[in-house]
């Protein structure tokens, strides 16, 4: 603790700079260790239903959420095709992408040389018809035609080892199930105006930095490739959207932040006629932010982005602490004495709020625990620095706001205001009525509504998704089993039923891991059916005798078939490093003692029919949207439960601090009424409430508690009431400015927080003024 002797003006500035330097150092140290995660799983409660579990396992991991869809348009088809090829090879060489496809024939490389013989175990060509003499003869006749056709130079190099062209058949089969039309060797949309590509990122769909890197890579490569042409790139997909929305939110928040800063500087400058106040006022807030962040970094691995956003919202209340100190400072009073006299009130507010947040620690949700640690550390640090550091820095003899004539005029007006009693009951009843009876849903569970994708982007995504046959992001079929091979077998058994659904148009197409990696059982059956080397050699000799081909033309074929017949069954591990690995990884999820195979669906027309067929075949149709909504609801009920306990704890703390029932009621009533009023206004306007409203409500309540406590603290002394009035006018105007601007934002998250707090500040101020202010005893005017 610093000495109580007032410091010289110069030492005060040095001390302030020192404080700033310490903060900068702390900020640097924290950023070294700070690992911001966008992983929604950290912020959600534990999954309970299978759909929730899958969603939590899948969130950011699923094939759908990692896909970026691209279209190139604006010039002639051959140029578009060339650009599509160039973009594909540029992106495929980058570490950001697991898979890039444009319909080009790169799929021939899907099987590396060492696995080539496995084509005879992967292909289903010989399931229906064995590899015998008749089939060989037919195939070789077709190959003669191939050699005489214009495609000869393409096919000839494959023929010696692969006379039935299984390599090409597999490459074709591994194209996305419902691939778009090909033109100039690459995918084009139905009108032939747009070349289509699809890329699967390595980063999870909800990893904003990873998605940002992928999106940047695509734009940079495309700009290089398309330089000098008129072609344009359209990019959609969950990752692209989150990047765009993140960018828009950041841009808007930055704009609002700038206007806020200017507004705050002007406001504080006007209120205190001093340029130092805005800087001094910001110190406790900065200290709180860094303390909160530091505490979370120390106690948790990885800080959730939402924790930081919510946390900084909640500690906004500490901006008020230095204001009280400033407004109560007057000549003849030591800043230390000032801080000491404010401390009981400030401490009551901080302690009761912190105790309330402690309930979040027992919520069982990692994100909420982080939030509690962040706010408790932040509020504590701000209060302590306001009490023990700030007094050394402020001007000990500013003008006394109790002498302000304008303020005195306002105050006289206020003194004549009625003290409502019965009317408050009426207000509460009306508010409750609106909350209960307003039409429309109370809660908004759809996470996507919080971060709305622009309608035109959504439309172009739907078009691209349809053209590319990209999987449905809402529904997915699952097959669970003990081992990977077991679920692969189950997938193979499910295929006829799925084909039936495609035939009846309930479904446009599907994709599953068994398409790329047959079960070991199937592979063994195919091995058994392959002829032995001697038999194949004899068959080949007979067929070649009267064919245009040389008798030794297909010797490499004999070698490959023999290798396939002897090889151990291909497993997922063997695919490592091939493009097939990515396709399989997205559809076959290993677990500790179980495995899950996914069947991604596209063009789903009749979910009910698909669900029924799935049930009949041991599979399950999962609705991921419903699962995510149920998770949000579960999360919210945890928050609400924590809040209920928090409210009780807060009341108890205030009761212990104030001890008189009348005072307790005076302090808590504005806050409680304000909460009702905010809910009534939002509900009355047809707003569906979400988590961000809830967090903002907590902030509004915290502000209300402080306002009421300070009005109560001012007691019946006129001068002190005037100073308190000054402080609270500055506080509420400041908060109102910041959050009204947020309320004007086009981003629903910012709007939700802004509108809630802005209404709250207004209502809290007015109600605290009406209810918590004590009657003035004019006679005690002179007493300091």
């Amino acid at each position: 603790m610093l000495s109580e002797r007032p410091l010289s003006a110069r030492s005060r500035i040095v001390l302030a700079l020192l404080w700033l330097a310490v903060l900068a150092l702390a900020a640097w140290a924290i950023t070294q260790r700070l690992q911001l995660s966008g992983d929604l799983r950290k912020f959600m409660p534990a999954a309970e239903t299978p759909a929730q579990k899958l969603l939590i396992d899948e969130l950011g991991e699923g094939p759908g959420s990692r896909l970026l869809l691209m279209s190139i348009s604006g010039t002639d088809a051959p140029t578009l095709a060339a650009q599509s090829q160039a973009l594909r090879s540029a992106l495929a060489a980058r570490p950001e992408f697991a898979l890039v496809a444009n319909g080009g024939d790169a799929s021939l490389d899907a099987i590396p040389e060492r696995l080539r013989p496995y084509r005879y175990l992967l292909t289903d060509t010989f399931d229906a018809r064995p590899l015998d003499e008749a089939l060989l003869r037919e195939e070789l006749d077709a190959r003669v035609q191939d050699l005489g056709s214009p495609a000869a130079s393409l096919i000839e190099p494959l023929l010696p080892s692969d006379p039935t062209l299984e390599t090409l058949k597999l490459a074709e089969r591994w194209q996305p199930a419902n691939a778009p039309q090909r033109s100039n060797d690459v995918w084009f949309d139905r009108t032939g105006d747009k070349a289509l590509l699809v890329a699967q990122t390595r980063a999870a769909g909800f990893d904003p930095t990873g998605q940002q890197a992928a999106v940047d890579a695509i734009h940079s490569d495309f700009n290089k490739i398309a330089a000098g042409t008129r072609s344009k790139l359209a990019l959609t997909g969950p990752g692209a959207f989150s990047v765009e929305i993140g960018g828009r939110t950041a841009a808007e928040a930055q704009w609002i932040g700038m206007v806020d800063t200017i507004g705050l500087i002007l406001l504080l400058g006007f209120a205190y006629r001093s340029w130092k106040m805005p800087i001094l006022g910001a110190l406790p807030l900065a200290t709180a932010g860094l303390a909160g962040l530091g505490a979370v970094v120390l106690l948790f691995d990885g800080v959730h982005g939402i924790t930081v956003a919510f946390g900084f919202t909640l500690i906004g209340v500490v901006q008020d602490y230095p204001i009280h100190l400033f407004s109560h400072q007057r000549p003849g009073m030591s800043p230390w004495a000032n801080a000491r006299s404010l401390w009981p009130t400030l401490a009551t507010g901080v302690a009761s709020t912190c105790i309330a947040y402690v309930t979040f620690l027992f919520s069982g949700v990692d994100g909420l625990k982080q939030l509690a640690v962040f706010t408790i550390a932040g509020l504590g640090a701000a209060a302590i620095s306001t009490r023990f550091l700030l007094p050394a820095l402020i001007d000990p003899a500013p003008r006394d706001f109790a002498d302000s004539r304008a303020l005195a005029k306002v105050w006289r007006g206020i003194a004549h205001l009625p003290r409502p009693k019965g009317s408050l009951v009426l207000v509460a009843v009306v508010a409750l009525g609106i909350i209960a009876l307003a039409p429309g849903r109370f809660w908004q569970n759809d996470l996507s509504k919080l971060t709305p994708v622009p309608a035109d982007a959504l439309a172009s995504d739907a078009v691209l998704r349809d053209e590319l046959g990209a999987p449905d992001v809402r529904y997915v079929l699952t097959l669970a089993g003990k081992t990977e091979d077991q679920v692969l077998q189950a997938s193979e058994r499910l295929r006829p039923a799925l084909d039936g659904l495609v035939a009846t148009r309930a479904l446009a197409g599907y994709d599953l891991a068994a398409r790329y990696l047959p079960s070991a059982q199937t592979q063994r059956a195919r091995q058994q059916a392959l002829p032995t080397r001697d038999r194949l050699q004899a068959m080949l000799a007979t067929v070649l005798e009267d064919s245009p081909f040389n008798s030794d033309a297909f010797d490499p074929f004999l070698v490959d078939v023999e290798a396939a017949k002897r090889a151990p069954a291909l497993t997922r591990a063997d695919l490592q490093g091939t493009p097939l690995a990515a396709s399989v990884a997205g559809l076959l999820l290993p677990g500790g003692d179980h495995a899950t195979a996914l069947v991604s669906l596209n063009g789903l027309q009749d979910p009910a029919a698909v669900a029924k067929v799935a049930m009949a075949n041991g599979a399950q149709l999962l609705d991921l949207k419903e699962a995510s909504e149920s998770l949000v609801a579960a999360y919210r009920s945890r928050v609400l439960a924590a809040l209920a306990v928090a409210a009780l704890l807060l009341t108890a703390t205030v009761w212990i601090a104030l001890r008189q029932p009348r005072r307790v009621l005076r302090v808590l009533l504005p806050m409680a009424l304000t909460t009702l009023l905010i809910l009534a206004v939002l509900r009355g306007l047809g707003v569906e409430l979400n988590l961000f409203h809830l967090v903002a409500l907590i902030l509004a309540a915290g502000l209300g508690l402080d306002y009421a406590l300070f009005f109560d603290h001012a007691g019946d002394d006129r001068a002190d009431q005037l100073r308190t009035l000054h402080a609270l006018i500055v506080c509420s105007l400041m908060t109102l400015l910041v959050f009204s601007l947020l309320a004007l934002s086009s981003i629903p998250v910012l709007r939700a927080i802004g509108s809630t707090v802005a209404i709250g500040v207004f209502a809290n101020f007015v109600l605290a003024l009406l209810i918590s202010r004590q009657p003035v005893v004019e006679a005690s005017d002179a007493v300091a």
Partner: protein
Amino acid sequence: MPMLMLLCSAVLPCAAAPEADAVIPVDAGWILQKLARPAPMRTAFVELRGSAMLKAPLRIEGEYRRPDPDTLVRAVRSPYAETTTLRNGEATIARAGKAPRKFSLSRVPELAGLQASFGALLSGDRASLEKHYRLTPQGTRQQWTLVLAPLGAQMKGSVRDITLYGRGAELRCIETRPLKGDLQRTLLAGAANDAAKASSADALVALCRAGAAR
């Protein structure tokens, strides 16, 4: 020379002014102007396709058709039936009882060259031809060759050159020399008709180059 005269008068409709044409040196402009045929047109062909995998070069007979200026159809009659359509930079191969297969001409540069040169030849579009090839004419109007050496890097990677053999207004044979593999030969029009009677490979080579000035 009498031999050539004989051939010329027997086969060619161009024999109208043999005396003059036989001695006038040829130039590319003249050849292209003479070869130009407005669509629709058709001409028979005989093609020999050699491969290390085959006992003997494959002999394919059929007809080239140009139903409209942008389309080239290669219809094989013997030894099997197959129709290849080249249009908009794509080839579509159709066989009896099978779904047609499509692929881009950019994957088969020699084929792209064939279509481009055929198209440009038949429309008399010298500028377009010179965009893709360096043209070297040789011989006389009555008996000429035109060597097309590719200019584009991609095409250069697979085709050494294409030689057209002709008499007067008739394009008789196209030889494509790939960088790797065997020379591919296509006999057209009169030469293709004659080839119907010839059987040995040597006879076909003679027919292709018959009396060529090289």
